[in-house]
């Protein structure tokens, strides 16, 4: 994860504050934006907790939050998008784990080392996701721009200024 102070980022980039010269106007994110962007991570964190038994809840909750904030500033949209994308991976992993577990419980399918290995891998990835989300929420609240590995790159491709 890369933490960059948004003020420094704006100073180094060609983007200038609204109304200056011929550049496309971008309003600098204020404290209100930091809070909203940070909330997108808190929302996804809450969704992970609630959605553990039913993984689709994560995605739906984060998606609703994303829809509610898509008209906001770029900074808020960007972090909502990153929070949403990082949920997709967790959704896929958890859904497969849940299906497998239900099959183990309700059919003749045995508990194998492969199954336990998968569940542990999913747990590790979920914990990593939770830690990264908490870190991102904290940093974004302070006004730092945090990019997750892969999800940050993907968000940069999707979320244009």
């Amino acid at each position, binding site marked *: 994860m890369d933490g960059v102070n948004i003020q420094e980022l704006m100073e180094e980039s060609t983007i200038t504050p609204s109304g200056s010269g011929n550049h496309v106007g971008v309003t600098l994110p204020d404290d209100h934006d930091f809070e909203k962007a940070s909330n997108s991570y808190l929302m996804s964190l809450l969704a992970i907790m609630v959605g553990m038994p039913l993984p689709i809840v994560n995605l739906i909750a984060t998606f609703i939050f994303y829809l509610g904030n898509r008209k906001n500033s770029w900074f808020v949209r960007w972090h909502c998008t990153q929070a949403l994308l990082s949920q997709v991976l967790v959704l896929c992993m958890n859904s497969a784990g849940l299906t497998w577990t239900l099959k183990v419980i309700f059919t*003749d399918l045995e508990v194998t080392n492969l199954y336990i290995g998968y569940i*542990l891998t999913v747990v590790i990835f979920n914990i990593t996701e939770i830690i990264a989300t908490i870190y991102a929420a904290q940093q974004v609240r302070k006004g730092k721009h945090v990019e997750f590995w892969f999800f940050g790159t993907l968000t940069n491709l999707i979320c244009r200024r």
Partner: protein
Amino acid sequence: MTKAFLQFILLISLFLLTWFALSRINFTGNMDLDQFSSEQEKKLGELLLESLTRSKDINRNDSINMVVDSIFHKICKANKIESDEINVLVIDDSEINAFALPGDHLVVLTGLIKYCKTPEELAGVMAHEMAHIEKDHVMKKLIKEVGISMLFVIAGGNGNFEIIREVLHTVSSRAFDREQESEADLVAVELLSKSKIDPSGLGNFLFRLSQEADDMPDELVIISTHPGSQERSAEILKEKKKYPENYAPLKFSYWDNRTDL
């Protein structure tokens, strides 16, 4: 775009590697089938067979053995199965049953031969048991039901008579997993079709089992080892359609005069 793609590949690889590494740990305490050598399996089979023949007689009737052997060799030849590798044994017993033992032994009880209305039905049951042998279901079932540690003890010659008899009971009268039964049915249809034997025999046999189970509870041991017979019968008839219907009826002069059973 390329960066995102590479990172995605790396992320998936990381996930798969973690999964693979964790799966190598033996959480369940179960040992793999690979750890049980073919010599140990053969020894286990011999001990079980010895226990079986100690309590029941081997049928020496030439006519009966000729029918069973003919069907067996016909299936083996058509499916390129080494017939020398499977030992087929007919045992005098009124139970309607056939089962496979470790070490590639196929046991057919005379009660089954008597119960079958056509040689195709008998061929169907034999093909089904041969499928269990081909797919190594017997050892998998034993490891699951008895535990590999106990099997090591028995194969090492340290199991007492009671334990061996209990394992024999497990092999002969407890069902395989539903998936293994279905797999054996499908393989049996293939074996029979390639041998130009009508697989309907197996389907009819299973259907009849489901219909008559209440009337003959004691003899129909096979019903406990072959649950869901009616549904499986339908599946067999469906699977049969995948193969050309160039069947040659099985004819044995002995078949209609099975009064000595």
